[in-house]
C-alpha cells in the first residue's frame, strides 16, 4: 500500500476545505470498497484520504412521496433493507441488495459508487435511468447535477476533484410508472458483464414514456433512445417489448474481452432488456404479456 495521509473531518465544510487544499491530491473515503483496491494496486495515487465517516448525519435515508434521498454515509445494506425505500422505489432497494457481496454491501456506499463511476457499477445505471439528483458540495457551495448527464465514461463524471457528493435523490416510482434492473454477473458478487435498467410510464394501454439504460458494456451508463422509440405510443405486448429489447443489444458497442465477446454481450443485453422491460411494465400496472 502506498504512503498516504489520513484526515478525519467532522463536517462537510471541513471535508470540502481539505479537498480544496489538496486541489486534486486528496480523495474522499466513504465505504472504500472500490477506492482501497485501486490504491493498493497503484491504479490510483493520492496524497491524502479524507474519511467522511465521522460527519454526523451522513448515513441518513429520507423517504417522502416524491423522493428517496440517500446521504453520503448510507451503505448499500441500509438502502437494501430500508422498508420505506422498498415501498417507494423498489428498484433502488433491489439493486442495492445485489451489489457485490455481503462484505461489500456492509461497507460500500451508494453515493460513493455514483461518484466513483465504475463502468460496471450498478448505481450509476440507476441514477441515469431515474435521472436522480446528485448533490455535491465544495468550498464554493452546493451544486445539483442530473443523473442523466452526470457520467462521462471510465470513472469520469461532472464532479471535479474538490467536490464531495453529499446526497443522491432518486424519484419514487409508482404506477403508472414502473422500473426494473437486470444484470448478468459471471459469479455472484463479481462485477456484472452486462446490465439493463428499464423505466416505463403507461397511459392506459399504451406506453406514454420510457427509458432504457445499458451498463457495464461501454465506458459508462448508456441510454438507448433508439429502443425507447420502438415502445412509446405502442401497447407493451411481448412482441413490442422484444423488438425494443433487441434494439438495446443491436445498438450497443461492446468490446471483446476476458468476460466475453462483443456478440455475447449484445445477446446478454437483449435478454436482460426484455426481462427488465417486462418487469417494469408489470410494475407500472400494465398487463403481463
Amino acid at each position, binding site marked *: *500500500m*502506498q*504512503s*498516504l*495521509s*489520513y*484526515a*478525519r*473531518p*467532522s463536517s462537510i465544510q*471541513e*471535508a470540502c*476545505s*481539505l479537498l480544496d487544499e489538496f486541489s486534486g491530491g*486528496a480523495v474522499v*473515503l466513504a465505504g*472504500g*470498497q472500490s477506492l*482501497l*483496491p485501486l490504491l*493498493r*494496486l497503484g491504479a490510483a495515487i493520492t*496524497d*491524502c*484520504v479524507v*474519511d467522511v*465517516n465521522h460527519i454526523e448525519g451522513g448515513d441518513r435515508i429520507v423517504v417522502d412521496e416524491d423522493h428517496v434521498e440517500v446521504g453520503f454515509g448510507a451503505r448499500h*445494506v441500509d438502502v437494501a433493507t430500508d422498508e420505506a425505500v422498498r415501498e417507494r422505489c423498489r428498484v433502488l432497494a433491489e439493486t442495492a441488495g445485489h451489489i*457485490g*457481496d*455481503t*462484505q*461489500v454491501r*456492509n*461497507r460500500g456506499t451508494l453515493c460513493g459508487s455514483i461518484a466513483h463511476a465504475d463502468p460496471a457499477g450498478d448505481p450509476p445505471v440507476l441514477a441515469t435511468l431515474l435521472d436522480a439528483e446528485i448533490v455535491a458540495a465544495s468550498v464554493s457551495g452546493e451544486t445539483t447535477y442530473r443523473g442523466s448527464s452526470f457520467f462521462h465514461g471510465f470513472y469520469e463524471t461532472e464532479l471535479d476533484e474538490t467536490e464531495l457528493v453529499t446526497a443522491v435523490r432518486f424519484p419514487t416510482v409508482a404506477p403508472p410508472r414502473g422500473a426494473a434492473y437486470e444484470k448478468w454477473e459471471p*459469479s*455472484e*458478487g463479481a462485477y456484472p458483464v452486462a446490465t439493463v435498467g428499464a423505466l416505463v410510464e403507461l397511459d392506459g394501454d399504451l406506453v406514454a414514456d420510457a427509458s432504457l439504460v445499458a451498463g457495464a458494456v461501454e465506458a459508462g451508463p448508456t441510454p438507448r433512445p433508439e429502443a425507447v422509440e420502438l415502445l412509446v405510443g405502442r401497447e407493451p405486448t411481448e412482441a413490442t417489448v422484444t423488438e425494443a429489447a433487441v434494439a438495446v443489444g443491436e445498438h450497443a458497442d461492446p468490446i471483446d474481452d476476458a468476460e466475453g465477446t462483443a456478440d455475447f454481450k449484445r445477446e446478454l443485453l437483449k435478454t436482460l432488456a426484455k426481462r427488465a422491460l417486462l418487469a417494469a411494465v408489470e410494475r407500472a400496472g400494465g398487463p403481463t404479456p
Partner: protein
Amino acid sequence: MSAEPRSTLTVTITVNDDETTETVPARTLLSEYLRDYRYLTGTHRGCETAKCGACTVLLDGDAVKSCNVLAAQADGHAVTTVEGLAGDDLSPVQSAFWETHGLQCGYCTPGMVMSATALLRANPDPTDDEIRSALAGNLCRCTGYTKIVESVHEAADRRREAADE
C-alpha cells in the same frame, strides 16, 4: 482527532473484547493491523484485492474484508476475529465446520467461519440459497462449497439446540 491530515495515527481498537491503543502508519490496512500489531494471524491475507474474503472479520458485528478497510477506519470500533469466537469450547460454527469437514486446506476457513457467524446471527435458519448468497464473498478453491453449506446448516442446528437448552 482533528481534521489535520496525518501520516501516522494513534488508534484505539477493541479486538475480541481487548481494547488496545497503537500508533500505526495511516496506510495500514485492518488486516495488517490485526496480524502485525495484534499478532492475530488467524485472519488470513489471501488475494489482498478484496475478492477472496479469507480476511473477513466482524466490524461492529458486520462481516467486512479487513484487507479493504484501513485500521484508521476501525478506530473506536469493535472487531471480532476468528480467535474471538471460541470460549472453552469451539463456537457452534467452528465445531460444525470441524465435524462436517467444511474445509480441506483450511486457508479460507477463518473467513468462511466469520461470514457464517454473521449470517446465523441475522438469520438463524437460512436456506441453501441464503447461505450461498451470504458466502458469495468468500472463495474456496478446495471443497466445491458443498461441505461448507452443509457445515453452516449443521451450525444453525447446533446454535438452535444450544439456545433451547
